[in-house]
Every structure is written in C-alpha cells, then in structure tokens.
C-alpha cells in the first residue's frame, strides 16, 4: 500500500513538474518578447463566450490582459517547478486553462483554429485543466520541492 502510494506520488510529481515546465516556458517566451500580444487569439474567439473575449481587446484593456496572462503563466510555472504553494498555482492554472478553452472551444460547428489535431468537446487545454485539479488534490511539494524544506526543516527547527 505504502509502496503504491509512493509510486503515485512520484507520478504526480512528474506531472506537476512537466505542467510547470510547459507554463513557465510559455510565460518566459512571452515575457522576453515585448511585441507579443494575445490580440489575435482573443479577436478570433469563437463560441458562446466570444463577446467576452472580444471585450478584452480594447486599447485600454489589452495591455493589462497581456501582462496578467504572463504573470499567471509564470505563477503556475514557478510554483509547479519549485514545488511550493502549488495549490495556489493549480487554481490559477485551472482558471487560465478554462479561459483558453472557452475562447476557442472544440465544439461541433466551430472552425478549429491553429490546432494540430482533431478534437470533439475535449481538447488538450481541458485535459491539462483536469491535470491541474489532480495537482490541487495531491500536493507533492513536500515530497519533492521547496515545501519539503519549509514543512520539515523550518518546522522542526521551531520545535
């Protein structure tokens, strides 16, 4: 039982690090490219919530939207790779992925833009979202990550 539990923790840790890796890379690439903007992605939003995404592309809002997007990506990336405050990271990740999913949902009848595969209702954004839910349920920072030091070392020191 204990051995199985350890295997599960190892797998979830790997999942956490890979998702963190993915988010961090996206965030860093955008951060170092001052000309990057989510304008095109939002302007072409489809489905029941397109009005919401179209609202975000105004002159006054687009700069904020871009900055918040980078910050959110980095928060997920850093918490997941370092293994600390990962439940906060998971919530941010779920929110971000939900927005990505709803902006271009793989619903029948909508044109799938800039996708490399074929999807019906479920796509990779949604799968990654569910993976973030797993990370939220099973935090592994204490097993591998900064949380290990925070919980074990700093606490034992206090005692």
């Amino acid at each position, binding site marked *: 039982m204990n051995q199985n539990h350890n295997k599960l923790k190892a797998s979830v840790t790997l999942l956490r*690090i890979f998702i*963190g*890796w993915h988010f*961090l*890379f*996206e*965030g*860093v*690439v*955008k*951060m*170092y*490219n001052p*000309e990057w*903007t989510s*304008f*095109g*992605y939002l*302007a*072409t939003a489809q489905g029941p919530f397109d*009005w919401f995404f179209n609202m975000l592309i*105004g*002159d006054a809002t687009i700069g904020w939207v871009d900055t918040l997007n980078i910050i959110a990506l980095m928060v997920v*990336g*850093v918490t997941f*790779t*370092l*293994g600390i405050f990962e439940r906060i990271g998971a919530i941010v990740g779920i929110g971000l992925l939900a927005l990505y999913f709803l902006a271009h949902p793989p619903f029948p009848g909508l044109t799938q*833009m*800039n996708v490399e595969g074929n999807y019906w209702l479920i796509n990779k954004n949604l799968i990654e979202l569910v993976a973030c839910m797993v990370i939220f349920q099973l935090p592994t920072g204490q*097993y*591998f*990550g*900064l949380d*290990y*030091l925070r919980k*074990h*070392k700093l606490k034992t*020191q206090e005692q």
Partner: protein
Amino acid sequence: MKWTRRDLLIGLGGLPILGAVWWAGAATSVGSRKKRSEILEQLNIKPSMPPAVPGIGGDPVRIGVIGFGIRGEQLTRALGFATDEWKEEMRLAAIEDPNNKRLEDFESQERLNVKLVGICDIFDVRAETFINSFSTTDDKIKRYKTYKEMIQSGEVDAVVIATPDHWHAPMSIEALNNNVHVYVEKPMTHTVGETYTLREAAENSDAVFAVGHQHRQTLSFGTARDIVEKGTLGHVSLIQTNTNRNDDNGAWNYDIHEKASPETIDWEQFLGSAPKVPFNKNHFFRWRKWWAYGSGLSGDLLTHDYDRLNCVLNMGIPASVSASGGIYTHNDGRNVPDVIQVNMEFPDFSTGSSQTKGKEKGMTFCYSATLGNGFNRPTVLMGHDATMELGNRLTVWPDGASTRYAAMLEAEKMRPDVPIYQYDPAGAATDAVSSATSQYFADKGLMWTYIDGVRVDSTFLHMREWLSVIKNGGKVSCGINEGFDEAISAHMAGLSWKLGRRIEWDAASQTLKPIEGIDFDQVLLANENWNLQPEMVG
C-alpha cells in the same frame, strides 16, 4: 539546523529545472528577435502612418449628389448620411450575424463638416428616398431635374457624381467650368476624347477635382511604396492582378426596382449621348453590361487594380496594351466581356536592379479576370530578389535565386518559403519572420484595417481628404493626372479587346498611336456589331 545532501536534493531539485526552462525560453525569444531585427535592419522598411489631414473648418461644404444608386448611397454614407431603410436593414443583419458591424462602424465614423443640399437622380424613387432621409425642418433638400440646373444654381459648393460612366465627363466638366468641386466615380471618362477635355477643364478650374479611387487611402500602399523604393523586391518584371467573382451582383445583374417605369424614370436624360433605344429597365439598372453606358471589366474593375499599382509604382500609361477574352459566363444579352486578360507593357520601367547594370529593364502588368469563378487570387509583384503580395496586408518572400539576399539565404537566415517582412495595419507591430499563428490569422482575413484602434472605411478617408483640400488647399491623392493615367490605360484595354489588336501609346506626344481608318472613340462607344460597321473600320 542540519541540512543533508538528501534534503537539498529533494527541496531544491526544482531550481535547476526552473533555471533551465527560463534560460531556454529567454534564449528562444531573444534569438528569434535578433534574427528578425537583423533582417528588418537590412530591409529598413518604414511602415506608413495614418494620413493626417487638416480639419474641414468654416462653413459646412454644401454638397449635391448626382446619382443615388448603389454607389451613390455608399458615397453618401461615407459623407455621414445613411437612409433609414439601410439602417434598419443593417440593424436586422447585425441581429442575425453579430459579426456584421457595418451599422456600428457607420455610427462611430467621424462627422464631416458637410451639408447635403441637393439631389439629382432621374429615378423618382431614389430622389424621394434621398429627400425623405436627409431633409430636416431647418434644411430642406432640393431636387434638381438636371445636373446643369444643380451645378448652375449657385447653391452647391461641391458635387458627388455616381452615375453611369457615359455621364462622368460631361457632368465633371460642367461642374469644373462653374468652379464647383467634383468627386467622380471611376473610370473618370467614357471615351479617349473626353479624357483630354476633362483634363483641360480641371487644369483651368479653381475647383478641386478628385477621382473615386478610395484605395489610395489604404494604409499598406504607402508601406508598399517604401518597400519597392528601397529595392526590397529587386527588378519587378511581372505584376499579376486579378478579379474573381461568381455571383449575380458581381456580374452586374443588379435588382430591378418594382416602381421603375417610363413615368418614374427620365429615360431621355439617362441615354444622353448613348444610342436612342426605347425605355429598357435592364439597361437602366444594369448599365454596366453595355458599352453605350459602361466600360465593362476594363473600366469597372481593371481600373481599381491599375490605379492600386500606379499608386505604389507610379509607372504611368503603358507603352502598349493587348487584351483578349469574351462573353463566356453570362451570355445574357450584354456586350461587355465577362472574361478578360489584359497585358500592359512597360518596356522602359524598372524598380531598380541588384544585378549587372542594364541586364534588367521592363515590366508586364497582367490583369486577369473572370465573372465565373470566385477563387481568390492575390495581387503579386514578382521581382528578382523577392515577391510581394499586395493587399490590406503586405507579405514579402525572398526569392531563392536572389542576388541581394544570396548571403543570407546561404547562411539560412532567410528561406524562400518564410516571409521576410509582413505588414498588417491591424497588428500591433510589423513582423519579419512570421509565426504560423499570425500567418494563419492574417490569411483568413481575420484582422482588419484599423486606424488608432478603429476600423475605418477607406471611402470615408478619400472623401475627407477631398473636403480638406477644398477648405485648406493642397493636393488630393487621386486627382486629374492620376485619373488621366487610369482612364487612358482602361480605354486602351477596352479598345484592344474590341479591335483584337495591340493599342500603343506615344509618350512624347501624349496620344494613342493612330490606327489607319479607325476612330477610337467610335469603337469604344459602339454597342452591337461594332466590328461590322464599315464607317468605323474604314
């Protein structure tokens, strides 16, 4: 506190991962930007800025509209006046399709300092719609029975002419002679002779004359000019432009109004210089299909493409033109061709060369059109060093055998299938090596032309420029000289198709080289069986 190696490995194991990913992300971003800026630096292209025109101050310009058909309504909307019928139609269209933003765009259009004061339309229904839509209790709009009455009334400062082609020149000349400003639709004349008369009238008039080639306002064309002038494309030897339409509206089979009758239409006035034929609704509403009133593909649509390129290259009138084609898709009684290929030769023209001096010179402008197929063929300028696709968006691809880019191609800093420059006035910035994403969005036409964040109608900009020149002086972007080039080139194409032979231009004498026994204007105007009439061919 004791930290073992194991503790550190478990606790800080994520740090090297974070560092590696961060480094890789930064290197990717900075590296591609460096490659981009190296290319952009070498090209040194300056994207054009939105036009800044001095304001239209003082008293409002008093405008009379001559011709309130399909185009007349569009021009009036560009001036800021839409009929209630149109607004209602657009409101319903927007409910049905939320992406239809035409009403919203119209309502957010900047107000111009103009006043509609008169209408001249020989179809009662249209004249009445105009008056009912735009008359107010303070400002009554007056209906004039003839264009002369309107122009000579002293009550209009400027006229907008959107009539069949055969009326363009007579009306423009009358207005210019009375110092009334003119905005006339293309083509600016219907015959070769008129083109000279109109030029003289414009030169001798104090009024401002503008031809309705609104695409001269398209933001990308200024940038395209800079691209060509910087030698980005090398020597351009071939230009391909196209028209592809495949619907009734595109083939000029417009709706015939139910109230049209000899009682509601002044048929005599419609005919003007055209052959006297009995009242014919088909001719009245679908005049573009007959040479007597219109000029077919060469006058209607080739003129757009020719002027677009003349605006970018300033290549002027071709040395010779050959055209061929026929009535292949709409054999419905029309006598203008619905499929046409026009080759214009510019043997002495060059956009510059990256090769040995004297090796490259001369260019062909090829216009290819059909009204029986809607496949989108882009406009391309084909040079020795690069190819440019010209539209609202510009894309430049290096040529695999380019001399100018040989070193960069060799070093694989450029690839023939990857654009080296892309310009989109809707995008936030110019893009050198375009990503698949931006390429995709742009190709789909999902980005629009924005000026300061607002989608703008180029016809509005064109009219605003004309009105500004009326008030402040200056030069319109499509005036008499540009119109002269456009009209002569279009007439050469029409003549070549009709005569089945090459038409040549003598640049020194500024005239068409005569063909013995042929009166060019008689040929242009002739409707049926023009080639069988002995007095014409001699």
